[in-house]
């Protein structure tokens, strides 16, 4: 009787502890994801990431059932991915712009909860779980993925949802994981391959019947092929920059989807500490290292690494705090420095993220162009501004998805001082307007007398029609 009561009390206590932790996770996620929402609602009523403009624009094209993107001069075949369908459908209910802002935030919120539940299912102890989620939530990768409207947020959420459903005992929940994995596979081979590997590893820990296991793998393969052959989905999540993997990998060096250097160091410690169990987890370790090397080649894989990184870093901190140190003061100070390092890195990232382009001036200039410009003509600007111009209804000369040939013409326009050469290319692409912003002035030209800037000032073929502090629009009169 007494034992029964004790067990009941223990169970109740455990349940209440569980719900407290879930609440903590929700509150943390809420506050971290609140910032982009507050920014959009009260300060800057536009997207922050260029990729958000692109994905929202593509989702709107889906609504018009377009096969060719006509906002790029010469047109371009449109490749939709499941995120665009999802955005379009929710856009029909809540408006596309609102969906683009709030869907990533909502998915981030649920991803945090799913991550918590998955760790619980893996029987990770509660302190490590809460700490892992804290590291996960404040990581620049999480902030980026769930504050920009890119397919990454859906991939991440579906990945966690799929894993969560797959590891449940219930057959119904397992079968629900199949449509999730199949949707994920439609995102392309890189995602499919990673999910495929994750499924194999999960099966090591949560034995499924061979029927269930192989059917899951078959679904992934079939849908990956369908996605690869018919959808040819393009995952656009950032402007490709000419940067090295160190910069992309560490947010402290400016990587958008990078990791805080402290998290990486702690994860390294975590690997060292867990290395003694490598026989038990050799497949998980193998996948971790493969993803690590893959992320050096393409920062897209960083989204898969943030989970093991958070977990390993958390394990390292917990191990440090539980270990017996000769000098307790140093131990406490070390933990303090670790927390400060992780949190300051995130604050700094958030700060830079909020300050990043596009500026309000740019948005105003684009709205001006949308209202006043003749839509029949192309707008020439740097390819990095391409997605923004497309979003605001202009036909753009080039964006970052363009081939080298067109970008080579772009370079000629930038640097040629011979008006005939420039005019020939402008005519070739039916250019009617030229948009120049502060970034272009700083990065492309070094003086006012160079290339296009020289021509704009000195040739009668151009007329300035708009000028704010950092953005100017010129009309090409030779059109």
């Amino acid at each position: 009787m007494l034992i029964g009561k004790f067990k009941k009390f223990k169970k109740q206590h455990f349940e209440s502890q569980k719900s407290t932790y879930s609440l903590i996770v929700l509150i943390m996620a809420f506050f971290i994801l609140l910032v982009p929402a507050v920014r959009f609602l009260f300060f800057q009523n536009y997207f922050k990431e260029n990729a958000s403009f692109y994905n929202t624009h593509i989702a709107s094209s889906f609504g018009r059932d377009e096969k060719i993107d006509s906002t790029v001069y010469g047109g371009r075949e449109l490749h939709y991915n499941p995120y665009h369908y999802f955005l379009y459908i929710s856009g029909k209910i809540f408006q596309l712009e609102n969906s683009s802002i709030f869907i990533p935030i909502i998915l981030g919120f649920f991803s945090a909860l799913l991550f918590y539940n998955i760790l619980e299912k893996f029987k990770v102890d509660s302190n490590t779980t809460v700490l892992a989620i804290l590291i996960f939530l404040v990581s620049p990768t999480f902030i980026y993925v769930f504050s920009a409207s890119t397919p990454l947020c859906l991939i991440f959420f579906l990945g966690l949802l799929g894993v969560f459903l797959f590891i449940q005992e219930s057959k119904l929940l397992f079968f629900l994981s199949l449509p999730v994995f199949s949707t994920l596979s439609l995102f392309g081979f890189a995602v499919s391959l990673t999910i495929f590997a994750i499924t194999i590893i999960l099966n090591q820990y949560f034995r499924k019947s061979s029927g269930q296991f192989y059917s899951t793998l078959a679904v992934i393969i079939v849908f990956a092929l369908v996605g690869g052959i018919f959808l040819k989905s393009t995952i656009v999540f950032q402007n490709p920059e000419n940067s090295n993997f160190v910069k992309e990998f560490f947010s402290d060096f400016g990587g958008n989807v990078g990791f805080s250097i402290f998290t990486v160091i702690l994860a390294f410690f975590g690997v060292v500490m867990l290395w003694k169990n490598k026989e038990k987890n050799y497949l998980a370790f193998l996948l971790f290292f493969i993803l690590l090397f893959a992320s050096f080649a393409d920062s897209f894989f960083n989204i898969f690494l943030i989970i093991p990184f958070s977990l390993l870093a958390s394990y390292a901190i917990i191990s440090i705090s539980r270990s017996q140190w000769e000098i307790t003061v140093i131990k406490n100070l070390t933990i303090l420095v670790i927390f400060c390092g992780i949190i300051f890195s995130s604050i700094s990232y958030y700060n830079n993220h909020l300050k990043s382009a596009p500026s309000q001036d740019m948005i105003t200039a684009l709205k001006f162009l949308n209202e006043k410009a003749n839509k029949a003509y192309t707008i020439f600007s740097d390819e990095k501004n391409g997605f923004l111009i497309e979003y605001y209804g202009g036909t753009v000369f080039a964006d970052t998805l363009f081939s080298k040939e067109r970008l080579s013409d772009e370079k000629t326009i930038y640097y040629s001082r011979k008006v005939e050469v420039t005019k020939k290319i402008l005519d070739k692409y039916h250019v009617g307007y030229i948009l120049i912003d502060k970034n272009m002035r700083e990065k492309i030209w070094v003086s006012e007398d160079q290339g296009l800037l020289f021509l704009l000032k000195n040739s009668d073929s151009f007329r300035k029609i708009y000028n704010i502090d950092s953005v100017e629009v010129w009309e090409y009169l030779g059109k």
Partner: protein
Amino acid sequence: MRLKKEHMIVGAILILTFAIRLYLSFQTSYFAGDDSYFNIRQIEHIRSSGFPLFKDDLSYSGRVFIFPPVYHYIAAFFSLFMPLEIVVKIVTNLFASAIVIFVFLISFHITRNFMSSVLASLASGFVPIFFSSTFTSSATYSLAVPLFFFAFYCFLKSEENRNYVYVFLTTIFLLVLVHSIVIFLIIGLLFYLLLIKLEHLKQSKQEIEMIIFSSLLILWFQFLFYKKALLTHGITIVWQNIPAEIINTFFRETNLLEMVYQIGLIPFFFGIYVIYRTTFEQKRKSILLVVGFVLSLGISIWLRIIKPEIGLTLLGLMLVILLSDYLKGIFEYIEKTRISKFKFFIILFVALAIVATSILPSIYYSMKELDNVPGSEEINAMKWMKSHTAENAVVLATAEEGHLVTYFGNRKNVIDSNFLMIPDAQERYEDIKTIYTSSYSTVATPLLNKYDVNYLIFSEKSKKDFEINELKIAQDTTCFNLIYNKTILIYKSLCKVIAYREI
């Protein structure tokens, strides 16, 4: 009584070092090294406003500085009691001379031999590269180097007395706020851990804890300080954004012969011998610690990730510590032989050898360094500009003269030797080189216009830097008016390019 005598001897070495440094330092009223005047400007700004000058309108005609300011605050404090120029000379040399105390303490801790420690202390006061690069400059590492060795000493002593752990942590904290050489302290300690592991020696838990904490603390602080620079330059921040053409001047390759001269013949060879002995014969933790630092510094110098004057200074001082271990062995051996009665003469001989191979080269290099101190002609030209040019004028000079333009001339420069956070440093340097070396004013004028240059300084430094004998563009007298004609020439740039039509 004995202790007092020891103190007196080390005190005498300190006074000797300080006195020679001061004597040489006061041979000129000015300071060597362009950085000195940057530091003096910062100290003056702290005195007047209480804060360093992080946003400067003059350097590069407007830029942001990133640097740890503790050295400047200390100098600013002392400048409340005496003139700034004297404070800088005295304080810098006093800090640098303090190294003899720390090297003595470290050597004594390792050898427990008074005489060998005294001789090491003497040699440390006169490591030629350290002596000549700090005796007449306002270099922040004159404070950082002694602090570095004090932290090293505390690390060694922490095994005996736990209080040293806290002193070590405080010193590390202070060092972080003084100079970025603190990174090399951590690299050295990590090398030490590696050596201990390789030699299968027992690792002290307390030491590991100290290393872990200080590594994380330093890493965090470096990220806090240099966050913006990291975002701007990425990993290349190590080379401080120095233009490719002159990076060899700052991070130059160091050959073995130069190392021997700059470190001192005796510390170099006997230090290396002790490393050999430690590697193959005796394996003592305290010596392995020094060897860890020697290895890490040697690799850093070889990879050119540390400025040679700093790298060789630290390396030289580490080798001096190893020298003390070698001398201890020699003295102990002599004690056992018949020549022990000549011990005094042997010590005298070693001391004379140190005088010949460390003190005399230090003085020789210092005298040579005095030639690099800006002369009164140069300073007068800069001062002349202050009184004869418009307040917002932009003055073009070489990178090495940039801080002189801002300090003495109080005018905007186009370039100086602090390249951090300058996005177009490479391009600026190339443009300036074109201006100085071009034969045509039509080439130079657009570039002068680009940086809004009003005045152009042609000095011995510009001749040396750009390997020219004359400023050819100045022959076009319609564009360049000679307004100051002494050893230094100052031209006023008169022409503006109205975009010529190529279209």
